[in-house]
């Protein structure tokens, strides 16, 4: 299902936080947003998920305005993991992941075998099956993050929106979550801070001061002068001798010869 933003903007207290976003995300695409802190990535993701109401422009899901869907209809199509979701309730990991089934269950319909299977699958894919009966408060930051991702997977939506999904994760689980979302047969829209990880996505959007500065494939978008301009860093592509592809190295501006340091 195609998700589309047209002249999308969000203003609060007369301050425009996000403006003039035109974006079309194709079915099955893995799309990544990068940009400095406060550039509006999370706000844009919330707008795309319908959790913030656009103050200008619109979001379209398929051929309809997102505002014409009920919350339940949206929740069956779009799942989102936002930054820093916490609770003081003492629920277990399995109970957290079971929340993902909410949009598919009626008010009194019991949890079925199919729902249970989906929940077990989500627990396994995010490598937290062994934590299923642990209470939320006993989990580490990375374990909580994976539980949230599992909950979103259990929602079985066609579009998965993830705000910094690799946050708190160790390097193994960062790579495995990115690998997982790339192989899932769904559209993925995520915000990432690691530009090298962003290069593994189909397309990248660069956010800067509430605007989409550039959209395109990694090689089109991650030009050195643009990174230098947006992120205020010096950047050098370095070729990996074993694989032949290049990755990016960064330095603070004016410290470009960091390689001189021991």
């Amino acid at each position, binding site marked *: 299902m195609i998700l589309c933003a047209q002249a999308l903007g969000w203003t609060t207290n007369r301050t425009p936080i996000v403006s003039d976003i035109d974006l079309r995300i194709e079915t099955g695409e893995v799309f990544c947003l990068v940009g400095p802190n406060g550039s509006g990535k999370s706000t844009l993701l919330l707008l795309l998920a*319908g959790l913030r109401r656009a103050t200008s422009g619109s979001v379209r899901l398929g051929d309809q305005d997102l505002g014409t869907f009920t*919350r339940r209809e949206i*929740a069956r199509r779009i799942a989102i993991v936002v930054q820093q979701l916490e609770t003081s309730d*003492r*629920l277990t990991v399995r109970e957290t992941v079971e*929340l993902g089934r909410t949009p598919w*269950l009626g008010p009194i319909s*019991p949890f079925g075998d199919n729902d249970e299977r989906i929940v077990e699958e989500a627990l396994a894919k995010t490598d937290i099956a062994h934590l299923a009966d642990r209470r939320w408060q006993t989990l580490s930051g990375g374990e909580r993050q994976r539980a949230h991702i599992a909950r979103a997977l259990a929602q079985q939506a066609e579009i998965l929106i993830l705000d910094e999904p690799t946050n708190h994760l160790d390097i193994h689980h960062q790579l495995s979550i990115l690998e997982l979302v790339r192989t899932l047969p769904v559209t993925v829209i995520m915000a990432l801070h690691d530009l090298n990880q962003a290069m593994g996505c189909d397309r990248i959007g660069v956010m800067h001061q509430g605007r989409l500065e550039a959209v395109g494939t990694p090689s089109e978008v991650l030009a050195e002068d643009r990174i230098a301009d947006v992120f205020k860093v010096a950047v050098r592509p370095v070729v990996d001798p074993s694989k032949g592809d290049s990755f990016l190295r960064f330095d603070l501006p004016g410290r470009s010869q960091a390689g001189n340091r021991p």
Partner: protein
Amino acid sequence: MISIRPGRWPGRFAGVTSKLTILAVALIVGAAIGETRIPFQTVLEVLANKVFGQSFPVDAIDQGIVWNYRLSRAFVAASCGAGLAVSGLVLQTLLRNALADPYILGISAGASTGAVAVTIAGVGGGLISLSVGAFAGALVAFALVICLARMAGGFSAASTGQVILAGVAGAQLFSALTSLMIARSANAEQARGIIFWLLGNLSGVRWPDVWLATPVALLVFLVILLYARALDAFTFGSDAAASLGIEVRKAQAVLIGAAALVTAVMVSIVGAIGFVGLVVPHAARFMVGPQHMRLIPVTAVSGAVFLIAADIASRIVIPGQVLPIGVVTALVGAPAFAIVLVVKSGGQR
């Protein structure tokens, strides 16, 4: 293999049966114990005579005490306990605040003020108009407390401490207004006394009160039960609930409205009984965990049993004298409030 798990139909049936049994036993015990002890058998015989048209030979005075005084009182206590406990649960979940409860948030005090205002103004005069006044008072109090908490917490969502402080301020304000109105009202008999409205009292409850309290408690219970999954979805906040397909505004309006309604009706019948809504949901969570499909029925039944027990205690603790039931619930509830406070803030450290 048939797994009997709560939430599946066989499990649900077993759960409903056992809860109804507990409730029935509590009601019968409530009718048997009092200043004069009446044997359970007599209580059952009275029930058989009155409900099923049997004709067991029962002492007329015993029959009168059981049927006219104690059973109606036990029914109101059960409805009130269940209603207030479920309201507390709903408020705790929606505000994501372990200390939320209709009494602490000033909703009961607002309902008292509303009911007293109606009494003094002399409109209608019946139980229903009293309840309508109480409902209006409850909603005004809740709106005031939330506004105050929002203002104190900047424009972010109201934080834990602010809501409770705002509630304390609101409760004090409305209690003062209630006392003022009663003190000023020309006809002192119109008001059933300051103690009644501020602490709650079950004496004087009769069957007409049951016909209001029990249906309202049942209705509110069913409405809230239909929102069990929605309440679960609020675990991680209202944005997370929305992303799980919950119409947040509608759910909040229905649930807060239901909590305010049941609080208002109970206040107009028995006055403001405190701490039931605080203590019982925590005890229920301790028993069955945080999922509302199990939590709501257990909270309701525990609330009913708790208030029947508190009522019995209020009648027998001091022989020959009946304490206002609010005194008993406060004696249990205030220490429980302290425990929740310590445990919850200890858990965050």
